[in-house]
Every structure is written in structure tokens, then in C-alpha cells.
């Protein structure tokens, strides 16, 4: 429902058009949230505080809202949840400005290829098929996401990597341990390793990914390490460095984006380096 279409993303490299109402639009750099009037700064929030319902709790909710930069803030709903917790809905105006020129977005810095183009690039560039190993690691058993990228069936109308003639896909499935994954990658001399992480409670996805990238760094000489890609709905795409991987994909990723990145990383970039 809210999945951003990949292509519109790539072409939107600037803040959009918001001008005085009724007048021709001009690009804006500084924005505020919009309730029903330009510049009103209105937002909605809800949260729980671990305290009994009452005036003090409502005051506490207001205090939090104010610390978050809301002024005025209205506590429009407060409900006791048992003796020790209270749930709030707060509406109000935030005074922060959004500066669109200060946003770092991981834009696609490589061309989006059709399966045909990708196949051609691999054939010409690698002169052999590209081998890709995929898995859900740790205790994560959510395979739907990685399958969406790998299986022929694909995602959002795009075929998955199995459909690419020049890509060999080894999908290890769910709950693969990191040593198992490294071993499999070595066994099939993987060019790239694709890992999915969906469970995020207590930062499971971050910890598992770091463990995985460290293991590959350990097991391979730097110049022979397969390209490491991680994906899942709650990843922040700008975190690749912190996670020790080459690329992070988040919610709504489509197979072609991944295939294109792999071609870029394994064919185009390596050729350029060579």
C-alpha cells in the first residue's frame, strides 16, 4: 500500500514544489509539518507513561511533548491502563524546521537494468555466471522477504533473481547460522551473499548483521570477500558502513534494484578498479 515505487524515488532528487497557495509552485528548502494550513507545524503523537492516570500524568505528557519541541501541545486523550500506566494522544505544533538540503539519502547511484541488460553485463563483464547465496540468518525465519528477491515469482510484478539466466541462486532459507552461511558461500564460491533480517526487537537485526560481516571479513582475504548485502523492512539504508556490509536495502525493495546493484558492484565497479 505504501511501498514507494522504485523509479519515482530515483528521479526525486529535490524537495518538491510548495509555494504560496494558488500560485505557481517553487521548490522549498525549509519546511514545516502541515496540518491544514501551510506552516502550521501540526503533528500527532501517542505514547504511554509508566504512571497513574491523573492531572500529574497529563502534565507529564505535556512536558514530554514540550521537550520534543511541541508548543502548544494539547493532550486530547488520556486513558489509564491499569494502576501504573497511562496512554496519551497529543496534538500540537512543532517548531522544528525541516531542511531538505541537509538530508542524506541513499540514492541509487547505479543504473536500473532490465533482466536482459543485467544478463548481458554479467556475460560480458564476468565471462561466467554470477553466484549469489541468500539466507535468513540467526533465529530469523522470515523468508518471505528474501524469497521475494530471489524466487522466480519475484515481487511487485518483477521476477526474482532466479529468473536471470546469468545469475545462479543458492537460497539457504531460514535460520541459517553464520558459520553455515560462510561455509556455503565458500563452497559455491559466491560472488555475493544476500542476507535478510526481519526481526528487530532488541536490535536483533543489527547484531546479527554485524556478526555476519565480521565472520566474512575473518574468513576471506579482503579482495576476495563476496559482496555483502543485507535487507529487511526496518533497516536504515544509510547504515551500510556501520553494519560492515556493502549495501542495505529496506522495505519495498524490488529484485531489479538488487540485480542492478550486484552488476554495478561486481562487474562495473570491479572493472573500473582493475
Amino acid at each position, binding site marked *: 500500500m505504501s511501498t514507494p515505487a522504485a523509479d519515482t524515488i530515483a528521479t526525486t532528487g529535490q524537495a518538491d514544489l510548495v509555494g*504560496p*497557495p*494558488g500560485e505557481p509552485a517553487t521548490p522549498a528548502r525549509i519546511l514545516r509539518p*502541515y*496540518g*491544514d*494550513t*501551510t506552516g502550521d507545524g*501540526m503533528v*500527532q503523537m*501517542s505514547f504511554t507513561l509508566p504512571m497513574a492516570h491523573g492531572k500529574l500524568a497529563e502534565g507529564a505528557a505535556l512536558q514530554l511533548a514540550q521537550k520534543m519541541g511541541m508548543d502548544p501541545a*494539547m*493532550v*486530547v*486523550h488520556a*486513558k489509564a491502563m491499569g494502576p501504573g500506566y497511562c496512554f496519551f*494522544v497529543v*496534538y500540537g505544533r512543532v517548531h522544528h524546521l525541516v531542511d531538505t538540503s541537509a538530508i542524506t539519502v541513499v540514492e541509487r547511484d547505479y543504473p536500473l537494468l532490465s533482466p536482459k541488460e543485467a544478463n548481458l553485463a554479467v556475460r560480458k563483464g564476468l565471462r561466467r555466471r554470477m553466484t549469489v547465496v541468500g539466507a535468513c540468518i540467526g533465529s530469523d525465519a522470515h523468508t518471505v522477504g528474501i524469497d521475494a528477491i530471489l524466487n522466480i515469482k519475484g515481487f511487485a510484478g518483477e521476477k526474482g533473481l532466479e529468473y536471470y539466466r546469468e545469475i545462479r541462486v543458492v537460497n539457504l532459507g531460514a535460520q541459517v547460522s553464520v558459520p553455515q552461511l560462510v561455509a556455503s558461500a565458500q563452497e559455491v564460491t559466491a560472488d555475493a551473499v544476500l542476507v535478510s533480517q526481519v526481526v528487530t526487537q532488541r536490535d536483533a537485526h543489527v547484531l546479527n548483521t554485524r556478526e555476519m560481516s565480521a565472520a566474512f571479513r575473518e574468513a576471506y582475504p579482503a579482495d576476495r570477500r563476496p559482496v555483502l548485502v543485507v535487507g529487511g523492512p526496518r533497516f536504515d539504508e544509510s547504515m551500510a558502513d556501520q553494519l560492515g556490509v556493502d549495501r542495505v536495502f529496506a522495505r519495498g525493495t524490488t529484485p531489479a534494484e538488487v540485480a542492478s546493484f550486484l552488476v554495478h558492484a561486481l562487474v562495473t565497479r570491479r572493472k573500473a578498479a582493475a
Partner: protein
Amino acid sequence: MTPAGSDPRRRSGTTSTRARRPKLDLDPVTVRRARTLARKVGRPIVRLAEQHTTVSVERATLRMAGLVGADPEGTPWANRLLDSVRGDVGLEHGVALPVWDALVRGAAGDLGELAQKAAVGSVRFRLPEGRDATRAAAAAKKSVGAGLRRIDARRRERERLIKRHGDPSQTPWIYLIVATGDIYEDMPQAQQAAREGADVIAVIRSTGQSLLDFVPEGATREGYAGTYATQENFRLMRAALDESSKELGRYVRLTNYASGLCMPEIATLAGLERLDMMLNDSMYGILFRDINPVRTFVDQRFSRQVHARAGIIINTGEDNYLTTADAVEAAHTVTVSQLLNEYFAKEAGLADWQLGLGHAFEIDPDVPESFRLELAHALLARQLFPKAPLKWMPPTRHMTGDVFRGYLLDGFFNLAGMMTGQGILLVGMMTEAVVTPWLSDRDLALQNVRYVRSAAGGLAEDFQPAPDGLIARRAQQVLAESIDLLTRIVEHDDGLLDAIADGTFGLMRRPADKGRGLDGVVPLAPGYANPARELLEART
């Protein structure tokens, strides 16, 4: 636009038309009885309306004849001119004869100039007699007739556009409000709402406009909780929605309020600017704005005649009762008001397809079986007025700051609307108890409607209230209570006026000799002439 073509229910694929049998077994004799009583209650009021005029009816006549604009302080020339005439010769004969007498006499080249001259005292009015009167009357009729023809042309234009762009493909029609107070914020919000599926856009009026005895002028940006109804705002918004209609391949309707002290004038402006629906209730102003009852009934009749002529669908205001009275206890007052609104509307020439009779989903959600009681009420209205589109209003009174709960309630409201074949669905906002709707509230609300319509719209087919079940019994009870109430009204010495005076509706007491705008009510003198009223009457 033909009445049939514009009856939202006609195009229904998923509503009552597919049901196996009428969902309620209403006794036809009882139903006939209810209508007879409503006629009995209403007829004296129509007579009362025929015997009076008001400042606003007379100003509407001037506007119909083309008088526009305002003085530098913002007082419309229609008001200035009317006040001059009233000061010189009184109003009991109408403005038409004195005004066109002056024009015929050459006191000014047109109405605008005349108003300006009158304002500075350089014209004085008289009541023409004999040949002068005949000549003035003819000139007036010509001017006003031209105005009526402009309204007719807008009606034809609407029919053309509907043919070109098409009507909504489903019922209920989706009705959304915008209410920023600034027409320039309203326009993009309305267009966005249309894009997301709104079939009808209502621009809510600024608080307090209903008590203004003049219609503000020009494009406005400073309303409170709504945007002023002005001719220019009407024009701007209609143009914006014409753009949307083209973009979307679906004629998007525009609504405003013919309500308050200027009801007749606003109705006229609506006809001239091709608005498509108007809030217009026979008693709302009396009960909720403390407007004098006689003033209201006179203004009502004129405005409804204009709406009939302009092909405008009216939306009545029964939902409002349930914001002050309890929706279960007072359910029958809604039915009674619907019956009266129907009577007054038909008397004024409105066709069935123009009767957006109101009702609302306002039962306290904590009442056991509240949803099924809502279904009972909604079905009763549906079956009592099978050819009227019916305007189904969302929960407001029992909405709270818990916007999640509010979003759910609105979903069940939408479901009730679909299950009972309502014609026009005013989309509820999760922020009802918080703020006037945000852009995102509207977007979320439309998503709610789309889900319910697509997923469960067809449930009407499977909905067959048990013949002796809660729903059937409740509907019968409300109908019986309505007949009791109508009977009690008829038994009042002075019928409806007395009933209104003693708090029968919405718990408000409104005596006939009190209330705002009373000084704008004038009993007709013999020889009263008003070409607008004559032309409109002739048509009906």
C-alpha cells in the same frame, strides 16, 4: 441532469437493489398516516410564508437581477439599496416596484449605480402606482427573469458536464468537508480530496456567518473553523473542482450552506455559480441559531424554490438534533423532521432526487447493540423515503481524542451506510473531537471508506433483519413515536410554531416572536410585488 440520473442510488451495484426483499416490513397505512400528519403540520407554515417577506428575500431578488459588489466598508450594495428603499417606503410592497420605478425613471443606469446613489442620498424611492407601477413591474420582471435564465443556464451547464465527465460510479456518493478558513488553502485540499475519491466537496462556513445579515464579498482568507460563503469563493471553488472533474473524469460536486439570515441570497448565489448541493433545513436556523421562526420559514420557502429551479440537491440538518439530544431517545424527532422537510421541499417544487434528507450515526457507542440500533434507524429512513438520496452523517458527539477509536467508529459508520443503501455519505474524521480536519485526516478517512465499500459494500445482500428481531422492532417503535409526536404537534393551538416554542425539537424553546432577524420580517401589504417569487411560483 435528469432527476433519475442524479439519484445516487440508481447506480448502486451493491446496495438495497440487490436485496431479496424489503428489509423492514413497514405497514403502508402507518406510513401514509405519517405523511398526512406532516402535511397537516406544514400547510399553515406555507401559508405563513406566503404572507410575509424578509429583507433577505428582497435582497435575493436584487441579486438575481444582477446587483453585485459591496461598498468600501464591505457592506454589499444589495444591503445598502434595500436599506434605502426600506427607509423611504418600507418593505411591505417589496423592493421591486420602488427600485425599478427609479431605474425606469432614469435615476441610474443600472442597479449598481442606483445603489451607490441611494447610499449617498442622491436618489429617493417612491411606491409607483398605476402605469408607473406596471412599467416598473415589467422592468423588474425582465431583469429578474434574466437572472433566472442565468441560473437555468448553469443548470444546463451542470447537466452537460455530468454527461461529459460522468457521475460517480457507485453509491453512496462520498461527501467531504474542507474547513481551513482560507479559500486558497481550501482549493488544493478539495482537489486532493477529489483525487482520493470524494464525489462531493462541502466548504464549511466560518463560525458566525449564519448570524450576519449580509453576504460577505470577495475571496476570503480569514474564517474561523470554516471559510466565508461568498460569491467569489463559490466561483473559485467551483472552477477548481471543474478542473478536478476534468482531471478525474468524474463530475465533482460542490456544496455550501443556504442557512442563516441570508439563506435566500446564498441560494441565489449558489444557483448563479453552479453549486450542486446546499445545506438547507426548514428548522435548523430556528433551533440552533435562534433565528426567528417566521423569518426562517419565509426565507426557507424562497431558497427552496431557487434550489428547485437550479437543480440543486438540498441537505437537511436532522443530524444536528442528535448533537444535543440523545440519539436513541430522540430518534423519532429525526423522522418527524424528515417528514416535514419532505413536505416543505415538495411544496417548494423540489423533486425526490433533490431531497438529501439528513440523519446521523450518533448513538453512544457504549449503548449495547448500538450498531444494530443505527441500522434500524438508517433502514427506517431508507424505506420511508425510497426515492430520496438521504444524507448519512458520521459520529461526532461521541468521538473523543482517541483517534484510533474514532477511526474504527467511522469505519462502522461507513459500513452502516453501505448496508442500508444511503445516497450521500459525509465522511467522518478521526480528529472530530480535536481539530477541524487536516489534509491527512481526509486522506485516511477516504481510505477507510474505500476499504469498507470494496470489502463489505455487498454485505447489504446478506443483511436480512429477522422479522421479529431487534432491528425490525426498533424501526417500528421509532415510526410509532414519530406519529405520536406529529399528532401532538397538530393538537397544539398554533401547530408547529407552538411546538417549536415549547422545546419539542432538540430541547430548544424558540417562540415565534423572538429570535434573531425578526426585524427583517415584513407582512405583505396588498399590492406587494416580487417578480422572483412570481416566476419561481409559476414554475412549481
